[in-house]
């Protein structure tokens, strides 16, 4: 772990956090008119994977994809414009928050049907294998997605053909408001399922960004060298409501106590304190980064807000290639 990487991990997490929290703050203006699923609290995986993968590697994701998209290097202005439904959005306003894409950095798409992109990521991996390159295809999924049929079918195929795929499962304990224990047997870990299918798998603390980075780095290097797949499960926690900008600990599906306990573990403060204490990061440097972030994000929101809406003629365009 070089000091530079340790800092980059923090900065990348902060950037994702700041974007998400600004979306949350502005959502009530009623100008972002689409469902949004924020990843506040879960930034470590996105930040780490972004440093491990190359732009030529692929990634796909699901409904909670803002962090994954930004982590992979996706264009922030285009993402916000998409959420605002604008012509300049990364999907021209057709997709909204749940359908992000930035092919220029290998982010090949995120879709809203849970499990939907798991086989797509495997297919991208198959294409890598066929072309003989050392690229990797990364599939982001949640604990809920590990209950879909297509999860098992895709993992099986990836295993039998040794496809260069990195499955990254963020286990945040909930699928909407359904806790893990009503959906999966107590005590069984998701990464053990992957192992049983024949995929090398590990499990780690999703709040320890350096540990996440180290595990990912090893897994990706291994895939590049020896082929895939690999499966990583990270324990994490989402702070805000499943869909929308608010906190919802009052509605009864989880307790305030549980929320506070997880919040204590949060990845950003942890990395921040670590770097400050070990004097790897000077307060002035942090402040300067914070300021550049504020400027960047303000600019991106202005861009999104000021961009024009697509119009009627766009509706029927590009239905077929």
């Amino acid at each position, binding site marked *: 772990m070089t000091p530079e990487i340790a800092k980059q991990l923090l900065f990348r997490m902060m950037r994702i956090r700041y974007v998400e929290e600004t979306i949350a703050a502005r959502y009530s203006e009623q100008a972002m008119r689409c469902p949004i699923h924020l990843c506040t609290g879960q930034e470590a995986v996105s930040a780490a994977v972004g440093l491990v993968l190359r732009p030529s590697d692929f990634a796909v994701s699901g409904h909670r994809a803002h962090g994954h998209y930004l982590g992979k290097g996706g264009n922030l202005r285009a993402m916000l414009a998409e959420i605002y439904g604008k012509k300049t959005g990364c999907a021209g306003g*057709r997709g909204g928050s749940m359908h992000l894409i930035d092919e220029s950095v290998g982010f090949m798409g995120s*879709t*809203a049907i849970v499990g939907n992109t798991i086989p797509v990521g495997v297919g991208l991996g198959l294409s890598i294998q066929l072309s003989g390159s050392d690229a990797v295809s990364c599939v982001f999924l949640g604990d809920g997605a590990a209950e879909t049929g297509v999860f098992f079918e895709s993992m099986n195929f990836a295993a039998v053909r040794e496809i260069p795929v990195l499955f990254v499962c963020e286990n945040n304990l909930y699928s909407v408001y*359904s806790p893990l224990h009503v959906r999966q047997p107590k005590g069984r870990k998701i990464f053990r399922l992957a192992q049983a299918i024949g995929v090398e798998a590990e499990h780690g603390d999703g709040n320890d960004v350096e540990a996440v980075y180290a595990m990912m780095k090893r897994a990706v290097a291994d895939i590049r060298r020896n082929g895939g797949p690999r499966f990583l499960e990270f324990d994490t926690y989402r702070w805000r409501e499943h869909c929308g900008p608010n906190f919802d600990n009052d509605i009864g599906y989880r307790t305030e106590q549980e929320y506070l306990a997880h919040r204590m573990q949060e990845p950003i403060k942890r990395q921040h304190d670590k770097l400050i204490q070990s004097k790897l990061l000077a307060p002035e440097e942090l402040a300067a980064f914070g300021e550049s972030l504020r400027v960047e994000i303000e600019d991106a929101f202005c861009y999104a807000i000021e961009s024009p*809406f697509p119009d*009627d003629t766009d509706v029927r365009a590009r239905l077929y290639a």
Partner: protein
Amino acid sequence: MPESISTASRQLTFAKAINEALNVALEADDKVICYGLGADDPKGIFGTTLGLRQRFGSARVFDMPLSENAMTGVAIGASLNGIRPVMCHQRLDFFLLAMDQLVNNAAKWFYMFDGQRSVPITIRLILGRGWGQGPTHSQNLQAWFAHIPGLKVVMPTSPADAKGLLLSSIFDPNPVLFIEHRWLHNMVGDVPEGDVRIPIGPLRVARGGCDITIVSMSYMTVEALHAAEYLQERGVSCEILDLRCVNPIDWQAIFESVDKTGKLLVLDTGAETGSIAGEIVARVAIERMGSLKLAPARLAMPDVPEPTSFGMTKGFYVRAGDVAHKVLDMLALERGDVDAHLVEPIPHDVPGAWFTGPF
């Protein structure tokens, strides 16, 4: 079986009417179970399943893994041994994962095993629309389902129909898809108390009239009624037939109305090509050509996915104004002040001011 039938009615929302039907069914028959993603969560599937778990216990009302296809097969298996499952999906789109179990098992079982056993399952599917639900959260695929022999497909509009038809669906010996439009959930109407069932099949005359027959379904009936009110002032009397079911379709009632008015407009909540509206136009043309005084017409969604952007959904949906335009054009009447009376509401992408997202 219904024991005490009471017909006293009060005003309920569509969502509350669904909730009441589920309560009545679970109470009436301990073989009824109800499950789905979020069936017992704090939001209770837009309020429709609230309180059920508390009242009937978690053996009969429960959440499920995110496994739509498997859990549909599980419903089928349970139903083969006497259970009456009601499965709930927050969006129709999520249920597409279960097409194999639905089409190859549920719809075929009774026929392919020579009538030995039927599959009495009910599957509630909620249709999304607006507020950026976009291409994968707003699909109106009732025509797909109606196309499959062996399924019944119910699409109520009024709260009373929602309750009465859901009860009939649950106690029907066949698989029934019960499709609820999200924009109806907050609509209020008279709903009778008790175990009052409405038969699956007959349509409802939502408004009597003599100049033109408008056949519609689900939320489109609401728009049709607004249009008809305006058209009445212009001296045009519309007969609105609310289908209630898109399989079976009440052909007799449609034919009789067309015999009377000689004109037909069909409204559909789904995309135009291959729509239920197309089927109705076709069959009326085939069987009632002699009654028709004009070419029949249809209004449906454009043949493109629903985009997310607020900018692209303006004017995208068929609204009362479009219906009125179409009727006036068909009757060769001036459009006159229709645009002033039937404006697309602002904002256009929500069912009412109460809706501020994000679901």
